[in-house]
Every structure is written in structure tokens, then in C-alpha cells.
């Protein structure tokens, strides 16, 4: 790379980061402010910060229970995603009859917005007897097209020779995947874990319809409930936002290196 002044780049990136972070700050500030949050002018620095809005949230809904539900559903989703997508991704690296058809199918499936399929999805889940159950909540997200392609791409990146060698050693395809390819597709896995976590953790419409009993509700539902409710106008709503976002952010910060690598190898082919 040639010599050029660094500071403009830093300046630009600092500006960008600032724009990305300010909303977080504003909400965080609101969530710990003691003052009436509708007072004008709003204070840039929180006045007498306190955690009581968070306490309110904790007792306003069965937070622990909702949290647990969200976690269980997410875990199921993640596991299913990694396994199914890996399998599908692997078979897409092979040449076989009707492959392009499958690809087309996958792609057009991406084009069907889930919100418009709720009623049939509900009926189907009902037929399967999975309504109001963790599995039923997770099932529609068991396999995600984007992640399939991420796996496909990172499998494609693995040298053929390696696989042939393994096959000569007499490993079954199943073992080839789990023993040879998966370890090499770690980052694709990380991507998969994070993306499927994000999607299931954030899912709102589906749990709304598919859950019936109060103790199957997930966090987004709890959050949405706040919107049409008393707490709505206090900082509690924003405290809730922070509480709901924290896990996702934490997970991302933990796994972001692998995640980005995953997308790198993923985007190699797309």
C-alpha cells in the first residue's frame, strides 16, 4: 500500500462509529435517567442516574421466564441450523441432477416474507401438534438459506484433494463432514450460530401467533407488550430494550472474529 495520511481515514471512521453508537447512548441514558423523560430540554448527561427502571421491567413481566424461553428456542434453532445447513450446504457442493432446480427453489423461498405466511404456518404447526411448544417456535427457522450458502461457500473453499484422501481412508460421507470438513468450516459455523441466534432471538411475529400460554412467551413479545402499556412512557421501555439487546451484543462481541471470517469465506462465493 502506498503512503498516504491516515488521519482523514480515522476521522471518517470515527464519525461513522459515532453515528452508529449515538442511538445506543441515547437509549442507555434514557433508561438510567431519574428525571421525567419527556422534560425539555433533554439532558445529554443523565441526571441522578439510577437502575430503577430495570427493576421495574424485571417485575413488570416474568422476565426470567421469558428470557429462558428465548434462550431455549434460540438454542434449538442454532443447533438445528448448524446441522441442517451444513448437510444442505455439503450436498450443494456436489454435482447432481436437479441441483440448479434446488438452488432456484432456495432462492425463491427467500422471497417469501414470513409475515404473509402466518396463518398457513400456524395451521401446519397445529397439524404437527407443535403449537405453544419450544419446538414449534423454532421449527420455521430450522434451516436458513443464507447460512446454507455460507456453508456451501466455505466447503467449496476446502481443497478437493483433502476430501478424496479422506474418502480413500474409507471415511463415510457423514464422517467426512463431521471429522474433516466441519473443523475446516469453523468460521462458517460461527456465522451460522450468530445469524440464526439473531434471527430466532429477534423473531416477533411468529411467537406472537404461535404461543398461547403466558409462560411460553419470548422476550420480543414482552417488549411489544410494553409498547401498548403503562410503562410505555417511562424509561422502563428503554431499560427493557437494553436488557433485550445485551445478550445478542455480548454473543456477537465474543464470536465476532470467527463470525467475520465466516462471512469472508462465505462471501468468497457469495
Amino acid at each position, binding site marked *: 500500500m502506498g503512503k498516504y495520511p491516515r488521519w482523514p481515514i480515522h476521522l471518517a471512521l470515527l464519525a461513522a462509529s459515532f453515528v452508529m453508537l449515538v442511538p445506543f447512548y441515547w437509549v442507555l441514558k434514557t433508561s438510567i435517567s431519574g428525571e421525567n423523560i419527556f422534560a425539555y430540554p433533554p439532558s445529554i448527561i443523565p441526571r441522578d442516574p*439510577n*437502575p*430503577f427502571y430495570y*427493576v*421495574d421491567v*424485571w*417485575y413488570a413481566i416474568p422476565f426470567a421466564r421469558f428470557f429462558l424461553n428465548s434462550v431455549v428456542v434460540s438454542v434449538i434453532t442454532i443447533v438445528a441450523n448448524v446441522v441442517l445447513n451444513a448437510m444442505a450446504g455439503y450436498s450443494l457442493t456436489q454435482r447432481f441432477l436437479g441441483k440448479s432446480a434446488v438452488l432456484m427453489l432456495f432462492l425463491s423461498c427467500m422471497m417469501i416474507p414470513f409475515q404473509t405466511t402466518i396463518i398457513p404456518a400456524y395451521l401446519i404447526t397445529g397439524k404437527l401438534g407443535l403449537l405453544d411448544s419450544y419446538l414449534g417456535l423454532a421449527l420455521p427457522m430450522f434451516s436458513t438459506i443464507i447460512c446454507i450458502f455460507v456453508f456451501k461457500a466455505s466447503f467449496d473453499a476446502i481443497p478437493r484433494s483433502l476430501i478424496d484422501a479422506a474418502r480413500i481412508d474409507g471415511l463415510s460421507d457423514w464422517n467426512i463432514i463431521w471429522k474433516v470438513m466441519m473443523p475446516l468450516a*469453523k468460521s462458517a459455523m460461527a456465522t451460522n450460530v450468530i445469524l440464526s441466534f439473531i434471527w430466532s432471538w429477534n423473531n416477533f411475529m411468529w411467537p406472537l401467533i404461535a404461543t398461547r400460554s403466558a409462560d411460553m412467551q419470548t422476550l420480543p413479545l414482552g417488549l411489544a407488550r410494553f409498547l401498548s402499556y*403503562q410503562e410505555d412512557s417511562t424509561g422502563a421501555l428503554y431499560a427493557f430494550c437494553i436488557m433485550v439487546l445485551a445478550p445478542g451484543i*455480548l454473543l456477537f462481541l*465474543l*464470536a465476532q*472474529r*470467527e463470525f467475520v471470517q465466516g462471512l469472508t469465506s462465505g462471501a468468497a462465493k457469495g
Partner: protein
Amino acid sequence: MNDEDISRPKWKRWLLNRFVLVPAALVLITVGWNLWVVTHDHGIVEGRVVDAAGAPVEGAEVRLWVFNFATFVVKASTTTRPDGSFEFADNPSHNIQVSAEKPGTGRSARVPIRLYFASEDFVLKDPLRLTDGS
């Protein structure tokens, strides 16, 4: 993941990475907090009631208000001891107010109390002051 990892023994690589340590830390914090909570949630609210002059008031009626759907409702009430002190033993809430009143001596303002968890034990620092008598 990193290359220098490989130099270290396997168990270290499995245990001493951020994917283990961070959750472990979180678990520790949670456990600690819960221990603190269970040892401090007897729902005891203590305080004193004094008159305008600052002398302790006996037999003043103290009310415990508990937050319930946008308003505070009286949950319990007690009367002060000779030294003007009072104690509630059954506060179920995390968002309460206390007020005192004695015919002839006057009434206090409602003092809001925010607790860090439901029925946290709490001692009111400055006493409830009964003013504008009659």
C-alpha cells in the same frame, strides 16, 4: 483459534478461552446477586416519625403504599412506638411509599422509596415529619 493456543495444553485451550470465562463470570455474578437477595428480602421497612419540632411521635398511623397499576394503594398500616419508630414486616413490592399521620399533630408527605428488588429490607434515613397540625 489462535496459533499460540496450540502451544498450550488441551485442557487449558478448552477452559481458558473467552467462550468459557465470560459465561462463567456471568454465572458467578448471578449466583452472588441471588445470594444477596435471599438474605435481604424479609420485606422489612423501618423508620421514625417526628413532629414539626423534631420530637418523636408516638401512636402516629403510618401507611405503606404499594405500586399497583399506575397508582399507589395502601398495603398495610401500623402505629409508631413511644420512640416514634415503626416497622413493616411484609412489604411485597419494589416500588413503595410511606406516609404518617396523627390527628392533632399533622400529616407527613408521602415519601417514595425505590428498592433494588422486591421486599428488600430498608431503613428510612430521615424520619417522616408531621407538619401543619390540627
